[in-house]
């Protein structure tokens, strides 16, 4: 059996908030090119886990390793520059700027790094970046809205634009925090279609999701989190058939 290439390794992570053991003994391996879903009931520690991975919260013990580099202790911008992009539960976008500029900014971050005193060049002369952004917007079906202020978009369109902002950086790992939360059925379906489309590009994804329909239509592997612990790990079919999962999550929720 050939050893699969592990891109992200969450190794023995604990996180305590005062007396609350939010994450206990988490060991998670995400393999290259896979879509790995983390599911679990409310308060299971899903968002905490994501925040530990992305560097927003330091773990109480243990570490997160991305492709041989220890992420623990690094700042979010450094983690992004290593090739990890994140989609938030509530889209984090530049509401006052145009859709096109929203997508150009991450492209510039990818090209110019964390800081560049680039003040004597006109943005209009960045034709390469602009074309790249327009291609990306075309991919997510939003080219027609490029001049709109991003803040005035619908929830679904904000999410699509945020995905475009992440994808334009060609991240090696994409983290999605409940990408369809608060969306209508229609917006949820278009988002699933879009995520399936991205999947064919071979990008590794970690997805946190509530919606079982979303999880089972996207994930290659599922880890089930309950009360801060991973109680099950495996393919969607394995997880679906696992009695512990049914008791902790599926049974309770459905």
């Amino acid at each position: 059996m050939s050893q699969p290439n592990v891109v992200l390794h969450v190794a023995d992570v604990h996180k305590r908030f005062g007396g609350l053991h939010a994450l206990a003994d988490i060991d998670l391996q995400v393999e290259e090119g896979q879509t790995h879903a983390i599911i679990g009931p409310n308060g299971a520690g899903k968002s905490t886990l994501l925040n530990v991975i992305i560097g927003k919260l330091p773990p109480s013990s243990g570490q997160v390793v991305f492709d041989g580099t220890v992420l623990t202790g690094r700042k979010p911008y450094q983690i992004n520059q290593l090739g990890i992009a994140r989609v938030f539960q509530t889209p984090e976008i530049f509401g006052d700027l145009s859709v096109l500029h929203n997508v150009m900014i991450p492209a510039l971050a990818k090209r110019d790094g964390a800081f560049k005193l680039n003040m004597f060049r006109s943005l209009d002369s960045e034709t390469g970046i602009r074309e790249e952004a327009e291609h990306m917007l075309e991919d997510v079906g939003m080219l027609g809205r490029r001049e709109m202020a991003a803040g005035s978009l619908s929830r679904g369109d904000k999410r699509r634009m945020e995905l475009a902002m992440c994808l334009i950086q060609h991240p090696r790992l994409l983290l999605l925090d409940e990408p369809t939360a608060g969306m209508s059925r229609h917006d949820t379906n278009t988002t699933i279609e879009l995520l399936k489309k991205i999947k064919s590009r071979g990008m590794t994804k970690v997805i946190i999701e509530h919606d079982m329909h979303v999880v089972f239509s996207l994930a290659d592997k599922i880890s089930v989190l309950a009360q801060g612990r991973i109680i099950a790990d495996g393919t969607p079919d394995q997880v679906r058939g696992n009695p512990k999962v049914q008791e902790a999550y599926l049974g309770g929720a459905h």
Partner: protein
Amino acid sequence: MAAMPRNDLLLFAGFTLAVLTMPIWLAPFGAAYPDLLQRFMIFGIFAVGFNILFGLTGYLSFGHAAFFGVGSYAAVWSFKLLSLDVIPAMIFAIIVSGLFALVIGYISLRRSGIYFSILTLAFAQMSYNMAYSVLTPITNGETGLQLTQSDPRHLDSALAATVVGQPIPTLLGQSLGGFSGFYFCAGFLIIAFFLAQRITGSPFGMMLKGIKTNQTRMHYTGFNTKPYTLAAFVISGMYAGLAGALLAVTDPLAGAERMQWTASGEVVLMTILGGAGTLVGPVIGAWLIKYFENIFSAINDGILRRFFDFLPDGVDSAMVTVASKFVGEGWFLTLGLVFVIIVIFLPGGIMEGVRRIAHLFNRAPKAPGKANPQPQPAE
């Protein structure tokens, strides 16, 4: 220049023309005399620079008068130690205020929002008090720093240039009194505006807007925002220093009151009144405030009594009593009132008013983020 978009070029050309012809079009308003025009230029520069930090980046500094004052002191010291020529004084003032802004900015930018504002205010008040007390050997305390016949002026004496009578700053030997002083300051305002326009339209400028709009997203997009905000802080500090130095050229007596918090507050008002985040708004705000300050602070009870003369006895003296609170020394009361009205009804400042009126005439929607970025309400 060639790379400049057409809209920007038009705006810049229009602005340059409006500034250079001010002595003509301001004549009917009684404002076309050099002393006031110079103030228009100086505070225009101050506001343009302040807007880079506040309007573009979203960091509200309540201590920018410190850099203005430092620029004034640095310029006067250059006149005293180096030369009466204004060019070394300008360069020296910009460098010194930039370094000063680097230190204060580095510390203040460890916080954001209200804490950042309070830190800048605290630093400015510290500078002001130090200028009055312990730094008297540098600032000459309450009297203010001034030029004297006996100043060393090493550069001038090396060139064997001598000064007869009271020394005054010059440009290549030419005096800068009257309209030549105005055109000198106008040149700097035009350059300052041009640079601000370039910064606004550059990738760097867009990062500043990104920081203002959503700093969290900037972090997760891979940007280290600290050097961006620090660069914006230092640039706006240098603008303030340049403005302070120009004030020292017109009036070579630098006093600590230029660093007081009221002076810091004034540039905030100018920027918000005109329209924070727009390019021309802060300049217009600065001009309006300086213009009305000039008018209102000159009105005294005698003028008011003549104005209300047509009213019956008793009523007119009551009117004079009320109105006198708003003029002369009480000008700040009027300013405060105008400011409250603007913030409530036109949070985007005068530029928003202009845009609303233009919108009534021109229904075609405009693309966002072109020549004038959308103004943001004050934070």
